[in-house]
């Protein structure tokens, strides 16, 4: 019996540049097959080929032994391939049902059969154990996590036949970084879901940077590098180091840089007392020069709100905030920046970069916007700055959108360093960043702390948080639930984070 899905010698190049060369891969029914590799290794391209977004230059795609060639996503769907994209493909102003069936609305007597759509959607939602969503809810009224669920339901709905509206004939499900937007307990929900799907005989291609998940979930792991197939191994027969080595092509040494020694930690650069706003309250916080403070917490616990409040993006409405001794009345990012606060946001593409502008213009944006009087660093100064963040690019004129996630993040950091901040806030510093760049960023962050900056890191990746932080503050329900010393373990953190089970409103 042939494998559920076989891709053989798939090659794809864009005007001469090869991004996939002779990649082969197969997927059994009921298996989770993990696909790992650094950004630009070709994962996304491979998936886009499978999804029918790109047509391969050569190679074959077989499903149940029958060969297919896709020229449009709808054909891939018709062939039973469902994709969960890293960026959601949801329409905020349409209902859940409309989104789920978009592109394959069931039609009865010439009209779209809304009832069928909504019934089927509701059914699938309950099957996935999701009760907070009704098919008629507007997507823009849903939390990110629930939008994720909608994405999955959407992927599960195959091309409906008029007879049996919404009859799912999805055989292959591709998940591209599905847990990226999720909080940890949501991740475990997702994993249960994945198991339930495989039990139904679906084959799942699972793309992720989080090796822990990969090892938890997958039966086999395939590693891509520079558009080539490196290896495919049964998960049971390998370990993290081997995989990482295959991905990076070198040893990654110790994962995290050494923490700050006590004498390196200075006095408070930023102090907050009794501060709060609609989302968070009672915040007492000191960020000390030279120290890396980690903020842990579930999605919706207020950790991001805290960062944005400190930065004045969603300012505190009560309490006091002093930076380097001078009180800062909460207002706009502009004021925060003036006071020497910088925020590396979670959503790099939408909030961190002007994607169609050059690296130079992005790096200089803050200084141009705020410190217009003092000449922004130009020429060598800028070059030096970019070297410092170990940016790898085709020159300062390259547009930001053509950089990899890691290098994009480095540009964002450079942008803030150019403004010479005292306090550096990171929200999910390494989201969607590949292993190599990840450690580079970690090292950089530590260096900055060592240079006397006060650093705050918000992250949903506990290993990162634990590895990087000199102390960890845990948030729950918009309050600081407690503080843990360096090297605290995940159980302590989760206990504080989930203190008093309030998962529902945490979502």
């Amino acid at each position, binding site marked *: 019996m042939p494998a559920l899905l076989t891709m053989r010698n798939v090659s794809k190049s864009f005007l001469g540049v090869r991004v996939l060369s002779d990649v082969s891969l197969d997927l059994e029914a009921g298996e989770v097959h993990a696909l790992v590799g650094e950004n630009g290794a070709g994962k996304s391209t491979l998936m886009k080929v499978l999804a029918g977004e790109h047509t391969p230059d050569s190679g074959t795609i077989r499903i149940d032994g029958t060969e297919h060639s896709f020229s*449009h*996503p709808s054909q*891939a769907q018709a062939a039973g391939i469902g994709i969960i994209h890293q960026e959601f493909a949801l*329409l905020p102003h349409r209902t859940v049902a409309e989104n789920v069936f978009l592109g394959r609305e069931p*039609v009865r007597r010439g009209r779209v059969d809304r009832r069928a759509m909504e019934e089927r959607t509701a059914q699938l939602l309950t099957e996935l154990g999701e009760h907070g969503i009704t098919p008629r809810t507007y997507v*823009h*009224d849903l939390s*990110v996590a629930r939008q994720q669920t909608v994405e999955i339901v959407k992927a599960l709905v195959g091309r409906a036949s008029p007879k049996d509206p919404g009859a799912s004939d999805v055989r292959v499900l591709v998940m591209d970084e599905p847990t990226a937007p999720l909080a940890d307990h949501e991740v475990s929900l997702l994993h249960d879901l994945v198991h339930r799907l495989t039990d139904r005989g679906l084959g799942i291609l699972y793309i992720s940077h989080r090796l822990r998940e990969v090892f938890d979930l997958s039966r086999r792991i395939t590693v891509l590098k520079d558009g080539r197939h490196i290896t495919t191994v049964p998960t049971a027969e390998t370990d993290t180091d081997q995989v990482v080595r295959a991905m990076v092509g070198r040893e990654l040494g110790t994962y995290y840089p050494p923490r700050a020694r006590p004498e390196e930690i200075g006095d408070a650069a930023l102090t907050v007392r009794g501060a709060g706003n609609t989302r968070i309250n009672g915040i007492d916080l000191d960020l000390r020069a030279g120290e890396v403070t980690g903020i842990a917490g579930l999605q919706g616990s207020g950790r*991001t709100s805290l960062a944005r409040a400190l930065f004045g993006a969603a300012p505190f409405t009560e309490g006091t905030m002093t930076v380097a001794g001078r009180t800062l009345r909460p207002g706009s990012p502009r004021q925060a920046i003036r006071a020497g606060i910088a925020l590396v946001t979670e*959503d790099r593409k939408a909030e961190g970069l002007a994607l169609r502008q050059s690296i130079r213009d992005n790096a200089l944006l803050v200084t141009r916007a705020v410190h217009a009087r003092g000449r922004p660093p130009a020429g060598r100064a800028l070059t030096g700055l970019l070297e410092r963040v170990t940016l790898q690019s085709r020159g300062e004129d390259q547009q930001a959108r053509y950089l990899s996630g890691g290098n994009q993040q480095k540009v964002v950091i450079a942008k803030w360093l150019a403004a010479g901040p005292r306090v550096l806030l990171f929200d999910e510093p390494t989201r969607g960043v590949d292993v190599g760049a990840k450690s580079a960023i970690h090292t950089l962050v530590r260096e900055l702390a060592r240079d006397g900056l006060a650093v705050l890191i918000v992250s949903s990746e506990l290993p990162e948080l634990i590895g990087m932080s000199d102390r960890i503050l845990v948030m729950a329900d918009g309050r600081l639930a407690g503080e843990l010393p360096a090297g605290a373990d995940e159980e302590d953190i989760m206990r504080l984070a989930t203190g008093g089970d309030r998962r529902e409103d945490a979502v």
Partner: protein
Amino acid sequence: MTDTALAPPQPPVKHSAVRASRLTDPAVGVWLAALAVTLLGWLVVTLDGGTFFSRANIVVILSNCVALGLVAVGQTAVILTGSLDLSVAYLIGLGTLVAAETMESGSVFGAILMVLALSAAVGLANGLVVTGLKVNAFIATLGTGFILRGWIEDNYTGPAGKVPASFQRLGYDRIGPVPVSVFLLVAVALALWVLLKHTRLGHHMYATGGDEHAARLSGVRTRRTVVLAHVLCSLCVGAAALFLASRLGAGAPWAGTEARYDLESIAAVVLGGTVLAGGRGGVAGTLGGVLVLAVLDSVFNQLSVDPFFKNVVRGVVIIAAVALYARRGSRRSA
């Protein structure tokens, strides 16, 4: 000042807000506005010593809705899909000419088909230029407009053709106070409404307008959708041309441009709460917008307001209305 830009991506909203949004739905709002304007007009006119709800006046208001209404309904289709059509004005002119001339020589029905065929062709051209050549709709349709204009100027030197009395009845007959042409408008609007709400094409138009990339990833044939939207729009414009032909009794090259149907229709659509960027709104609102403009016009007439001053008021009304929608929109972080 920059708070809008800073509002965090997706603040969770309670479901009650969704209910509320039903009430603050622009489509409803604009009809309320229309009602308000009507009552206000009635009040003012009566104080001025006129009669607003006279049968004659109602007829006038309604029949003034038809031409703009048909165009605006079509415009709604393209705008919802995230596109735009600035060529409508010239298409109307050409449409009336073709209609009148074919009716003079041939049959009425033939003429109708001719005009619709012409419109469909123009719509197709617009759609293909926008999707195929990737020319921004603004420029593309502006260009086709120019092309049509040249065609008209080169082939016609004034009103031409002649519409038989039989067909003119479309423009002049009425049932009670309701001109039959209004039924044409209603029919077209209804057809488009059904199409938008209850067919795949409709759903895909909303999707394409809302987020073309997402729609495409979801397997929507976005290009095809945009092209069809343009065709639909042009067909509505064709209907408008037919109506005008029947009303004017002949083809009038500048029937569309002198009335500025291109910009007026867009104004009406937006007044009706359809978002210019696409993806949200609908026919119902547009009709409301058209009604508001028509009633305003009538009130101006009753008070014989200086024609130049009318434009000032219209401009203010349009801006004010959209500003209102913007406030509503922001309140629910839509």
